[in-house]
């Protein structure tokens, strides 16, 4: 029995095809990159069988070890600093009435999202070069401060969203029930805010871990994070060792982003 299909108002011809191609396109290069990290040969294009050898060689590479440690130290410090600053800033911008200069403060916090990274990188290169000459200090705090700065807006976003979604009455109820400001914050605001803080910290961590441009310009001689180490290696003969390092970094980022997604889903309930 012939029966015509119901008219689907949402269909647009070709759109599904483009969309699905888009997903393939997004993931194909990454999947190939991961696959070739397990290549037994030295090529990143010719498959010669499965092997863990490049993971082992990356693990044993002293330069990679140092870069990994530096990356983790910087990402940890920067996400802690940025998240703490972002929590305070979010409290200041959501828990008080609209104030003179609020537009400026907002622009300032989001400024790292608007200004091209290369410009900030150059600015920091010049500024820190002056300080390095003046103080003689060439340690990792330049990198931590620089990373903290561009991580602030990423940490700020989910925290502010969480605060705005929170019922202001809860804090007033706590104050009404004899809670002093610090007690209100600790017993009512913070437990509610917690998923936002965690989400913000995770985003900040991922952003710090992934940064290339600013790190490349700010780092002192001999300092390398994983991304800047990889950037340097790309100029040479590329072996699947780079794929192996990339795969590990990808895994960390994906895990954190998926966890972030779960957290932001839970807040909607």
């Amino acid at each position, binding site marked *: 029995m012939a029966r015509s299909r119901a008219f689907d108002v949402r269909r647009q011809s070709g759109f599904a095809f483009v969309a699905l191609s888009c997903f393939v396109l997004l993931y194909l290069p990454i999947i190939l990159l991961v696959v070739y990290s397990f290549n037994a040969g030295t090529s990143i294009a010719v498959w010669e069988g499965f092997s863990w050898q490049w993971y082992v060689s990356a693990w044993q590479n002293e330069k990679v070890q140092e870069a990994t440690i530096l990356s983790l130290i910087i990402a940890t410090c920067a996400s802690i600093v940025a998240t703490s600053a972002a929590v305070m800033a979010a409290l200041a911008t959501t828990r008080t009435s609209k104030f003179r200069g609020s537009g400026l403060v907002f622009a300032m916090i989001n400024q790292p999202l608007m200004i091209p990274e290369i410009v900030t990188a150059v600015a920091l290169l010049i500024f820190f070069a002056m300080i390095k000459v003046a103080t003689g200090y060439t340690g990792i705090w330049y990198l931590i401060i620089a990373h903290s700065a561009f991580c602030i807006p990423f940490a700020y976003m989910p925290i502010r969203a969480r605060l705005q979604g929170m019922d202001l009455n809860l804090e007033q109820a706590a104050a009404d029930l004899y809670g*002093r400001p610090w007690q209100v914050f600790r*017993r*009512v605001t913070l437990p509610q805010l917690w998923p936002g803080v965690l989400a913000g910290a995770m985003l900040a961590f991922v952003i710090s871990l992934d940064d290339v441009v600013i790190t490349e310009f700010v780092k002192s001689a001999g300092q390398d994070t994983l991304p800047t180490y990889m950037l340097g290696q790309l100029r040479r003969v590329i072996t699947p060792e780079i794929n192996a390092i990339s795969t590990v970094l990808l895994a960390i980022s994906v895990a954190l982003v998926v966890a972030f997604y779960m957290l932001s889903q839970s807040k909607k309930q």
Partner: protein
Amino acid sequence: MIEISGLTKTFGSGDSAFTALKDVTVTIEENEFFTLLGPSGCGKTTLLRSIAGFVDPTTGSLTINGDDILSKAPFDRPVNTVFQSYALFPHMTVSENIGFGLEMQNRPKSEVQSIVQEMLELVQMTALADRMTSQISGGQQQRVALARALAPKPKVLLLDEPLSALDFKLRKEMQIELKRLQHETGITFVFVTHDQEEALTMSDRIAVMNGGRILQIGGPREIYDHPAERFVADFIGDTNFVSADLQSVEGEAAEIVLPSGKAIQARSVTGGATSGKVTIAVRPEHATLTAPGALIDGTLQNIVYFGTDTHYHIETDANSTFVIRRQNQPDAAESQKIGDKVGISFNPGVAQVLRD
């Protein structure tokens, strides 16, 4: 006893300034169920929040039992609030919510426990003590919010439209429940609502507010039977407004002459005019339908049957209508029909002269 005098609150400044409270003066007695009634934006919630400490009045004074509380933070004021949205802490259980205020006051653990137990019994929530507040119904949340605010035994309990989120039947139950709680605890209740019926059934006294001012304060019967201003008469129940000539005032008695030329005694209003053109208010159920030649004559325009009673709409002149409400009797046949000439009459003292 709460003494509020000359309280004014202006939000913003310059052109965008908005005055939410204008020179509000009122005394709320100990152990009283006091209601602030008015439409949204009338200032009733601002007044309540001024007492709670969430609004900082621009000028005026506010004392509780003689203590000036305006300079105190919300957590230093001996008042507790039941919020319109309940504002129960979602990350705490029912018991933890109820005990929160006591804990903040650093009461000993055993005392907190026993008071929480007592409160759970008072609002009949003992069985659900360990539930999270998101796992209980709206009516139960309402009870927990009440118990939480009552637990620290405040001098004054502030209630911000606490019943507005409940459905009709539950609201009726809670009205009786609230009255019972007020009676049992002996705490002064300050209750904010826009629902006139709620105000009339529960309150000892009502303050009717509009435009940031208190227009009239009085018991429910006083407010209903003898509204002082057009707004009060209009906001609470249905009313007929009739213009009249005021002849003389002697105490509560006012002699008025209606447009038909008939004279009758009405009730005077304090602070109103003593002679000249005035408006009087007559409740629909206080007037009766008679033959023409009564106090006011008109043409029957519409008859609306409501089950318990019937409304008669009478056109008294080109642009005014007078409504009479008559209680229905079983199987009574309708004797009037639309287009009939009819009369309206009411007893001396029923008509209320309005202030404006």
